[in-house]
């Protein structure tokens, strides 16, 4: 991905290296690279995790564990795909670990962070545009539990077991909710009697650069 512009409060001198170079440096034990990675990515990671888990302590612990997983893990990042998606893939699993520790769930997670399920770009295209279209309305029409199940399995790419820990329900419940959500979405999208698409009243929220 491209070079990031410095935001307020970032450590100076790190802007030149792109994320992939920083990851490699951190994997080999460069403290400055780890600090630079943290300065760049901890902010959005914290916010995104807070959307899944409201406890700030758990989120902070998960963020720390995420960056620790990047430290001295030579070879974990294969160089393909987005660094942010890679970090999120590790982060969401660390968050699940942290939630599990907090709630005392029994089962153990794999020893190392599993490879991230990077969201395929075709889905990306769709997701970027959904707030305007039918899909957005269909999603908004789902109940919060079904939406949560779909979000965990589709957007975050978790297995049903991991999603179960995140949502705090049993694994079977996750599976059935996903199924019901898909059924509801399919019905909403193929509904012949659906009205015209709502006007893009939120278009001003997005700006062209």
């Amino acid at each position, binding site marked *: 991905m491209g070079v990031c512009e410095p935001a307020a409060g*970032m450590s100076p001198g790190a802007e030149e290296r792109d994320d992939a170079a920083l990851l490699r440096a951190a994997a080999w034990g460069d403290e400055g690279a780890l600090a630079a990675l943290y300065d760049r990515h901890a*902010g959005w990671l914290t*916010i995104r995790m807070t959307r899944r888990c409201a406890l700030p302590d758990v989120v902070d612990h998960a963020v720390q564990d995420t960056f620790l997983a990047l430290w001295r893990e030579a070879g974990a990042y294969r160089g393909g795909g987005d660094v942010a998606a890679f970090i999120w893939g590790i982060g969401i699993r660390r968050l699940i670990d942290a939630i599990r520790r907090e709630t005392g769930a029994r089962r153990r997670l794999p020893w190392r962070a599993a490879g991230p399920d990077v969201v395929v770009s075709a889905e990306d295209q769709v997701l970027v545009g*959904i707030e305007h279209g039918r899909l957005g309305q269909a999603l908004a029409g789902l109940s919060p539990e079904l939406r949560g199940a779909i979000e965990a399995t589709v957007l975050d790419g978790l297995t049903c077991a991991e999603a179960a820990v995140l949502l705090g329900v049993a694994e079977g419940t996750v599976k059935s909710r996903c199924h019901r959500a898909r059924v509801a979405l399919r019905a909403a999208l193929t509904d012949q009697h659906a009205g015209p698409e709502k006007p893009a009243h939120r278009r001003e929220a*997005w700006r062209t650069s």
Partner: protein
Amino acid sequence: MTHAGEDLLRGYAAGTVEVAEVWSVEAHLMACARCRSALSAHVDAGRLARSRSVLMVRAALGDGGRVRRLLCRCGVPDHLLRLLGATPSLRRSWLLSVLGVLSVVAAEAVAVRYGWVHASAAARPAGYRDAEVLAPFLLVAPLLVLAGVAAAFLPMFDPAFRLAVAAPFSGFTLLLVRSVCALAAALVPVVAATFLLPGPRWLPLALLLPSLALCALALAAATVLDPRAAAVTAGVLWAVPVLLLLETAHGPLPIVQAHAQFACLAVLCACAMVLLARRDRFEWGWAR
């Protein structure tokens, strides 16, 4: 390229945005560094800074290497492993020196036994009696184990000794943990070396009890004497009988035979009881 506006990012950070837009924002964030850094401004800087300093400390501490990770997975508490990191007799340099000394002594015994070299005494035919050949090894091996344990409890080997005394962590527990691990670490090369030596097949096992008894004696004596004096006394109490036996009985093997093993067991039990009874001595340190 389209970017997320300031209001949208603020709303996303505050959790007030509708779910469909949330999904769009998150998908866009994965691809856009500029919006990611713009979003970072909506997190409390103090919170991030505190977390950052803890992260850097944890990165500085590391997880201690493969051996420690393995032991952690087996259930050994992490803080005990970190305490052992301060023990000199568990460090690579010490263990390598022990291996070095053992190899020299064992090699000498093997060479003399098979007649590859002649002993410095009057020339004798090849095929020594095993007893005399093993003398140096039998003398040295338990002393090496004792040295390892002594390094684990002697204050002269622990530069931050007074901190350990002034801390609430039980001095006796600390001493036991270190001594037992030093004992185990020293016994492994000793037992391995005895397998290579010529001699009776029970020799490796026969060295276990004397070594344990010797270390227990040193620890028990440390509750009464100055620790250095205790370690030296224990060492002398082993060396003198071995040397005497070499002079009088033409071989130190008796010291590792049956009746001597029972004696060692008795000494071990007696010293263990003394140690337990007087363990309060270790809570004060030796600041005399």
